[in-house]
């Protein structure tokens, strides 16, 4: 996986992607790859690098959609881990998630090209419908339903269904969730203090709040750990399936420095 360390030629521009699938498909297509596990593992780092830009910008659109990107990143990290740690065994649920992501990408790819065709044809040749018209003079034909009271309650219902301004997830929350650098640094610190550290212990001590947050935290911690493995700073061992992962500092790693994930 040496090509991942050098600066990626497949740079992604911030703000151009509507959703995680569009981003993923674009990363895969830039490399002229098919949609499968191998290509997904290959684009994981660029995907994460893109997500990281969310915490640097305060774009409202990003923040509203960040959770969708994070959800997909969890599956991507599974795929990536599988490719880095061949012994890693996955649960049925996890395998299904991977297959599901592949399917979604395939569906999205088909829709994407169909959508381009639609865009090319939309409005170029229109079958117009006739002008709105009534054929004879209107005859006033009221309905007993038209009373002040009914009209009043109708309008209240209309108002109840008015579009609300999009609710924003507070920016601080998002930053808290996706700050990968911070987690890497914290992991590095802990390795300096103890030669052995259990992954479960690590994620627990990092203090996550609710369950959802904890899940995301585990994902990101795991990702951070894989990054450190890649950098040759730590070794990981999983003694049994579903067992805890043991983290060891590599003897050769002389200096531990904060890592920049985005090369």
């Amino acid at each position, binding site marked *: 996986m040496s090509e991942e360390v050098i600066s990626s030629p497949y740079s992604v521009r911030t703000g151009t992607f509507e959703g995680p699938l569009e981003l993923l498909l674009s990363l895969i297509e830039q490399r002229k790859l098919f949609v499968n596990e191998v290509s997904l593992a290959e684009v994981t780092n660029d995907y994460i690098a893109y997500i990281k830009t969310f915490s640097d910008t305060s774009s409202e659109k990003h923040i509203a959609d960040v959770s969708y990107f994070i959800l997909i990143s969890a599956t991507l990290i599974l795929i990536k881990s599988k490719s880095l740690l061949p012994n890693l065994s996955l649960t049925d649920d996890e395998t299904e998630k991977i297959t599901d992501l592949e399917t979604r990408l395939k569906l999205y790819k088909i829709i994407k090209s169909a959508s381009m065709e639609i865009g090319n044809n939309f409005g170029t040749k229109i079958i117009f419908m*006739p002008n*709105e018209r009534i054929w004879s003079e*209107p*005859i006033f034909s009221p309905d007993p339903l038209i009373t*002040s009271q009914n009209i009043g309650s*109708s*309008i209240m219902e209309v108002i109840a269904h008015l*579009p609300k301004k999009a609710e924003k997830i507070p920016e601080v929350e998002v930053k808290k969730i996706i700050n990968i650098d911070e987690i890497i640094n914290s992991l590095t610190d802990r390795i300096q203090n103890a030669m052995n550290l259990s992954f479960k212990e690590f994620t627990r001590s990092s203090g996550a709040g609710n369950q959802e947050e904890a899940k995301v935290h585990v994902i990101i911690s795991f990702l951070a750990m894989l990054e450190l493995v890649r950098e040759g700073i730590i070794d990981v061992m999983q003694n049994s399936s579903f067992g805890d992962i043991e983290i060891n500092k590599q003897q050769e790693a002389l200096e531990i420095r904060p890592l920049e994930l985005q090369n």
Partner: protein
Amino acid sequence: MEISLESKIEGLLFYKGEDVSIKKLAELLKVSELEIEEGLKKLETSLAGRGLVLVRKNDSVVLGITSELSPLIESIRKEEVTKELSKATLDTLAIILYKNDTSTSSGVSRSEIDYIRGVNSSFILRNLLVRGLIEKITDAKDSRRALYRPTFETLSFMGITSIDQLPNYTQVRTQLQEALNNQTENND
């Protein structure tokens, strides 16, 4: 394949739904008035026995429905104006009533109604027009824009002499206006 002149005239008249002068047809279709005359003759022939007829009035023509269908059309029309108003129709009427500005006697546009309701309202507006519950006027500020407002008869049917007698008038107007302001922001 280029379609024939009579087919072009037919399509154009169908779209317009109102009298169009022969001069205007010639201008729009970029042919001479004589050619239009010939086209109209062919159109008349091809319409024979069909559901539509070409009606000539002096120097104008209009596409109409054959008189043989009059009883049918009359019964459809009757059904249109007597059936109970749907909830969606009542909601639309309510928006037009509350958005109507008595002081400036302006109205509300279709796109504003659509935005407030969250769905397209064209068929509903047609039904309200047919029933004489609302009328269509041209926006004084923009002649291309049509506005809708309640008819005088609707107000008197409801027993109100001015719009602000509607329940929660001021409050409702403020809320509707806020929603429309949001729309403008979102479109930026």
